[in-house]
Each structure stands twice: as C-alpha cells, then as structure tokens.
C-alpha cells in the first residue's frame, strides 16, 4: 500500500507538469504561430496526456508475471474480434478493456486500452486516427477502473452494461468523431460539427450495442477468471 501511494504521487507530478506547462504552451504556440492547426495541436495534447501512464509503467519496472498477464489480456482484446468474424461490425474490444479496468484497476485499464488499440492498428493499418483510438480506449479503461475502485459502479451486469453503453456513446465515440472532424474539415463551423457528430452516431450506436452485449454475456465469467488468477498466483492485485 505504501508503495502504491508513492506511485500515484509520481504520476501526479508528471501529470501536473504536463497540464500546467506543456498543454497551455502548445495551445499558445498553435494560437500564436499558426492558424487553425486543430489536428496537430490536439494530437500533441493527446500524446502529452498519455505519456505519464507509460512513463510510470516503465519506471516501476514491472515484474514478468504482471507484464505477461497484461500482454495476454491485450492480445485477447485484439484477437476477440476473430471469435465474432461472422457478425460484421461486432467489436468486443471495448467491453474487454472495461472488464480489465474494473478488475485490475485504472492504470491497467488505461494501459491495456491504449496498447491494444495501438497493436490492432499494426494489423488494420496505422493512420492519423491511431493516437485518438489509443486515447479513447485508454480513457474508458481508466474510467472503468476509477469508478469501480470508488464503488460508484458494481460488478453486477446492469450497471456494467449501462456504463459500457454510455462510455462508448458519450466518450469514445465523440473522441473518434472529433478526430474525423479535425482531419476532414478545414474550419470549425456549427454545421460541419453537427454533420460529423450525427454521421458518427450510427457507427457509435453499433459499437455501443456490441459492447453492451459482450458485457452482458461475458463480464461475469471474465471477472471469475481474473479473480482466480489473482488469488491463485497473486498477480495484479489492485
């Protein structure tokens, strides 16, 4: 527990440095030296906000068991699509990230979310969307971890499904739509914002449905398996 306290402080310091200095600096530079570099500015900010997580993970020098279990969970999240190949557009990855975040904590949730989406882009192709995907999946995993740790949401099916559906519709989906907005539009007007977010809605709804269904059918067995690993081998006890 003592160790954990120190860990969080370190992360906080790095985060504070980034929030206080780098993000305003980037915003100022983008405002001052270039007009409307929405994409470049936002990607820089996204990368800054992901760095502390990676930095803390490296600094901690994770043990083999933690590392391999996280790698295996990421690989399951990426490969899970293969089990549903007969159902087009069914992506269970977000649900698995939420389960990992809830079961193993916010940090593990963020890492598996960001790393899984990065790896899946090695298969489907990297692009301007990569940092956004990493960020959106990471943030949902992180939030799942935080909300479960603070007891706001329990591991029961219903609250889990509500969280899963809402987090895709209100967090991950809009983040990815913003990426589309910044890459496809030269200027931000009310009309093109409305057009992009509305055209993203059906895709996000299908994604949310897949997430809810996976959570409904798969969350309880997955929790059991993760708990078993935790008690049997003592790995990753959040």
């Amino acid at each position: 527990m003592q160790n954990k306290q120190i860990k969080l402080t370190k992360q906080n310091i790095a985060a504070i440095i980034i929030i206080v200095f780098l993000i305003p600096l980037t915003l100022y530079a983008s405002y001052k030296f270039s007009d409307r570099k929405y994409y470049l500015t936002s990607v820089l900010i996204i990368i800054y906000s992901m760095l502390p997580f990676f930095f803390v993970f490296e600094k901690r020098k994770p043990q083999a068991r933690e590392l391999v279990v996280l790698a295996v969970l990421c690989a399951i999240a990426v490969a899970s699509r293969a089990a549903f190949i007969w159902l087009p557009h069914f992506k269970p990855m977000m649900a698995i990230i939420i389960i990992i975040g809830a079961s193993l904590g916010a940090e593990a949730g963020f890492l598996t979310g960001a790393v899984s989406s990065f790896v899946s882009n090695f298969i489907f192709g990297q692009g301007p969307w990569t940092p956004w995907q990493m960020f959106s999946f990471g943030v949902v995993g992180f939030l799942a971890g935080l909300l479960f740790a603070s007891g706001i949401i329990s591991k029961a099916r219903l609250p889990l499904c509500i969280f899963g559906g809402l987090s895709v519709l209100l967090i991950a989906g809009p983040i990815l739509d913003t990426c589309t907005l910044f890459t496809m539009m030269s200027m931000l007007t009310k009309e093109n914002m409305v057009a992009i977010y509305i055209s993203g809605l059906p895709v996000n709804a299908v994604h949310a449905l897949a997430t809810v269904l996976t959570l409904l059918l798969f969350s309880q067995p997955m929790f059991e398996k993760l708990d078993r690993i935790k008690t049997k081998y003592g790995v990753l006890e959040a």
Partner: protein
Amino acid sequence: MNTAFDGYHPAVNIMFFAGAIAMGMFFTHPVFLCVSAAASALYYLLLTHKSGMGFLFGMLLTALCVSFINPFLNTTGDTVLFTYLNARPFTLEALLYGFATGGMFFSMLMWFASFNIIMTSEKFIFIFGALAPALSLMLTMILRLVPSFKRKARSIAAARKCIGKAPKGDTKKDALENSMSILSVLTSWALENAVITADSMKSRGYGSAKRSCFAQYKLKKQDITAIIIMLAATALIASGGAVGGVGYAAFLLLPSIIHVKEELTWLILKSRI
C-alpha cells in the same frame, strides 16, 4: 518487401515519416500541399507498383469528396459561385479551403500507407526497445500472441463442434452465445499459460540485465548521409520563401530518389551480366 529505403536504419525511417507527416499537417500553403500530395503518391506507387493504384484512386476520390463537402457546410467567403436552397451561397473561398483540407487529408493517408509498409513492428520495437523496454516487450508478445490466439479460437470452435456443443439453432442468439463461450475458454487457457510463461521468463533471468533485440541495425554511412540531407532540407524549409519550397521537396522526395537510384543501379548491373 525489400525496397531501398527499407534497408536504411529504422531511426532514419522514422525521422523521415515523422517529419513528412508533421510538416504535412503544419504547412497549408498550396504549393507545399501539392508537393506533399505528389511526393506521397509517388513514393506509395514506387512501393506498391500496380497493386496500389486502387487504393490511391479510392483515396483521391475521398479527398475530392472532402473538398466538395466543405463549401456546403461552410458559407463564409465573398466570391459566390452559385446559390441553392433559399439563397445559401456556395463560395469559391470555401471550395479552395476544401481543396486545401482534401489535399492534406490525401497526403496524410498516402504517407501513412507507405509508413505501414516500411515501418514494420520489428523496427518499431528496435527503436523503442531502449526508451521503453517493458512496453516494447509487451508489444512484441502481443504481436506474437494475437495470431496464436486466433488459431486457438478456431481449434476451440472445432473441438466444441466435435463434442456436440456447436450452436443448436441458426439464430443469432445461439451463435453469439457460442462465440462468447469460445472467448471464455480462450481466456482461461491464455491466462493460465501467461503465468507459466512469466515464471519461465523469470527463471531464465528476465530483468537481470539490459534487454537485447532480435533485429540488429547498424548506423551505416548511407544513414548518416540521409540524416544530413534531411537536416539540411529542414534548415532550408525554416529559412522560408521559395528556398523553403525547394527544401520541402528535397525532404519529401528523399525516399523516392533512393528507391529510383537503387532500381537504376540494379538495372545497370543486370544489363552487364
């Protein structure tokens, strides 16, 4: 895939693509945009030959759509080309802005398409292995596990069929439940295996020394030359004006030039046989 620029040091590869992509997003001057779009398309075609034509034209079409959608969503501008729907203007300025965005969109996607061919995960891990050893080890493991899990998922499905646990009906619900069971079996198997792998890693000394990398790349003379050219071109770009445009073209055409030079050398050598 064995192309000329591919044989350069991964640091040179990533320097080029990071530079090309970041500058492509930064410079909105029409000349710079045209240079970037042309250079990215040229290099992509050099890498893929005829097979890349379909993707290239698809992206060109998408970029044109992006360009022509803009004036419909953005009505600012003085030169009205025509009006529609209760005098809503379609302006030239908005259309030109659309072309700028479309051009940037096109060159970004083209650079990323070449990036995906050149920057294999192996090179990525080589570069980041020193910076982030734990994360890049994780990356290596995941990239190896994903295909193995896909195979395992197929064999689990086959085994379930054998023992009469295939989906009973033809309904989506049965199939979905079956897929969830496969995923569940896969997870149990994978997690148990993970701990065995980790213990084996530990007993063979994971973490006791600095990690080495399977792929070894050495900085050669050609890499240093390429870095110097890129730095010189960046200096030209920073000086601005027409010289900046020349520097930008020199930077972006570097991999294409290396590629063509290599093919010409090969042709000459072949003709001597």
